[in-house]
C-alpha cells in the first residue's frame, strides 16, 4: 500500500534535532504562561507534552508556530531560527498543527479544507485559474486526488463535498488532522486531539498516530488522556507553571513523584491506567520505534 507521500528516511543516530526550543518565555500582562522553557524534538519521534491545565502547553505551541511572539528565548527548526516569524512562514517550513478548539473552515467542504493544507504546493496562478490552462486542470486534479488520499489515510468516511461543520465531531477532528497532514509537515503538532472522543474513537486515533509516525513525521502531542499518551509517546515532556518539570520515557514519567503530584494525582483513574500499561510490554507500547530509544 502506498502512503500519500514518500516516506522519509528514518534519521540516523546523530541526526540533528528537528526542533530546538531554548529558554522560551511568554508573558501576558502579569501571567507568565511559558517561563524559560527548553526542550527539543527529534526527527520522526513522537513526543507528548503534558501538564496541568494552564501549564502553558498551548502557549508553547503557539510560540513554536508563530501565533505568539515569545518575549524571550529562541525557537529553531532544523537549525534555522524561526523565533517571531509569521505563522505562514513557519508553516511553509514544514510545521503543521491542529488547534485545541477545532479551527476548521466551517462553511467549506471537507475536500476544500484538506486542500488548504496543500495550498503552498499547488502549482497554479491566478491566470491559470481564469484561463483554465492545462496546468490548472492538472494541479486541481492532483490536489483533489491527494486530498482524497489524505482523507482516506485518516479514515475519514462520508461525503467529502459536505460542509465540514455538518460533520459529527469525531469526523471533524479527523479532517483537521488530514488538513495538517496535507501540509506534508516534518513536524505535526496536535493539541488535545482526543478531547471529546469516545473510547472507540480514541482507539482509532491511537492507530492513526502510529501511522503518521510511520510516515516519518515527528509528532508532538498535547493530551490529557494518559492512556493514549502512555501508549503512543516515545518521550514525554511535563510542564508546570510554564516550566519543564520532567522529560523522559513514559515509564519514567509515570513514576516521577513531581509529575504525580502536579499532574497525575493519585486518583484511581491513573492507577487503573498505570495498571493497564504495566500489563503491556514496552514493545507493545512503542511498537516499531523501540529500537530508536536512546
Amino acid at each position, binding site marked *: 500500500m502506498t502512503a500519500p507521500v514518500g516516506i522519509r528516511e528514518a534519521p540516523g543516530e546523530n541526526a540533528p534535532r528537528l526542533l530546538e526550543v531554548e529558554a522560551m518565555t511568554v508573558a*501576558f*500582562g502579569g*501571567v507568565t504562561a511559558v517561563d524559560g522553557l527548553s526542550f527539543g524534538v527529534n526527527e520522526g519521534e513522537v513526543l507528548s507534552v*503534558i*501538564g*496541568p*491545565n*494552564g*501549564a502553558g502547553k*498551548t502557549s508553547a505551541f503557539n510560540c513554536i508556530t508563530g501565533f505568539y511572539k515569545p518575549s524571550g528565548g529562541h525557537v529553531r527548526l532544523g537549525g534555522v531560527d524561526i523565533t517571531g516569524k509569521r505563522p505562514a512562514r513557519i508553516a511553509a517550513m514544514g510545521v503543521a498543527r491542529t488547534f*485545541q*478548539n477545532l479551527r476548521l473552515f466551517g462553511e467549506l467542504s471537507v475536500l476544500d479544507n484538506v486542500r488548504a493544507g496543500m495550498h503552498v504546493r499547488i502549482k497554479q496562478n491566478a491566470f491559470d485559474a481564469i484561463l483554465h490552462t492545462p496546468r490548472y486542470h492538472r494541479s486541481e486534479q492532483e490536489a483533489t486526488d491527494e486530498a482524497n488520499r489524505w482523507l482516506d489515510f485518516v479514515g475519514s468516511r462520508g461525503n467529502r463535498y459536505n460542509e465540514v461543520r455538518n460533520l*459529527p*465531531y*469525531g469526523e471533524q477532528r479527523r479532517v483537521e488532522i488530514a488538513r495538517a497532514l496535507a501540509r506534508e509537515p516534518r513536524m505535526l503538532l496536535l493539541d*488535545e486531539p482526543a*478531547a*471529546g*472522543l*469516545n*473510547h*472507540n*474513537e480514541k*482507539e482509532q486515533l491511537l492507530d492513526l498516530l502510529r501511522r503518521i509516525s510511520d510516515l516519518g513525521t515527528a509528532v508532538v502531542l498535547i493530551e*490529557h488522556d*494518559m*492512556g493514549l499518551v502512555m501508549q503512543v509517546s516515545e518521550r514525554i515532556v511535563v510542564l508546570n507553571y510554564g516550566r519543564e518539570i520532567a522529560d523522559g520515557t513514559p515509564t519514567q514519567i509515570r513514576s516521577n513523584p513531581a509529575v504525580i503530584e*502536579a*499532574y*497525575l*494525582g493519585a*486518583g*484511581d*483513574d*491513573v492507577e*487503573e491506567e498505570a495498571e493497564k500499561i504495566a500489563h503491556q510490554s514496552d514493545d507493545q507500547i512503542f511498537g516499531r520505534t523501540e529500537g530508536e530509544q536512546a
Partner: protein
Amino acid sequence: MSNVLEVRDLVVSYGKVEALRGLSLTVGDGETVSLLGNNGAGKSTTVGAISGVVRVTSGTITAFGKDVTNAKPWDLVEMGIIHVPEGRRIFSRLTVHENLQIGGYAVSDTSVINQRIKQVYSLLPRLAERRSQQGGTLSGGEQQMLAIGRAMVSGPKLLMLDEPSMGLAPLMVAQVMDVVRDIREQGTSVLLIEQNARSALRVATRGYVIDSGVVTIEAPAEQLRADPRVVEAYLGK
C-alpha cells in the same frame, strides 16, 4: 424520594433530523444521574431541551412538579435549573469576576451573590488568582472551572453539566468530580453528561445510556459499571 425532574417521551428534531425520539428519564431529589452515549447520541440535546434552549417537538418535561416543556430559559434559571453547556461558553471578554457576577444575574440580592462568589473562590482557588483576567485568556481547564463556578453562583437546585471533564488534566478531572460530589452533598441534584464514563459512573448514583435519541439502558451506577455492553462501548476492556 420525589423527582425533581421528569422527562417523558421527549422528541426533538433539527429540521429533518430527529435528535431525540421519545426519550424519558428522571432525576430524583439529591441524586446524581449520569448520561452516557456516543457522539451525537442526543445527550446535549436532552439537557438543552430541559434548559429551554432547544425547542421540544413533543413530550413533556416536569421540574419540581411543574410542567416546564418549552419554558423560557430565564424562567428555568429562576427555578434553579442550571445548565453548564458543552464547551464552557464563558464570556471571553468579561473578567473572571464579571463572569461569576453574570452567573448571579437571576439573583436579585447582591450580598447573596458576593457570598457565593466568595465560596466559589475558596472552592476553586485558581479562579481567585485569575479574578481580573479576561475569561477568554484562561487555559481550557481554567475556563471549565469558571463555567462550573459561574453556575454555582446562581444557586442551582438541579445542576446539569455537559461534559465538564473535557480537556481537563487527570488531577483536575478528579477535582471536578470532587466538586460534583460536594455539590451533590449540599443537596443539589445533578445531571451529568460525560465521555469519561469511568469517572462519571464513579460519582453518579444512577445512569442512562442513550443511543440515537432513545434510552437503551437505565440502571444504578454500579450495575452499569459491570454491564458488558457499557464496558465494551464506554469503558474499554
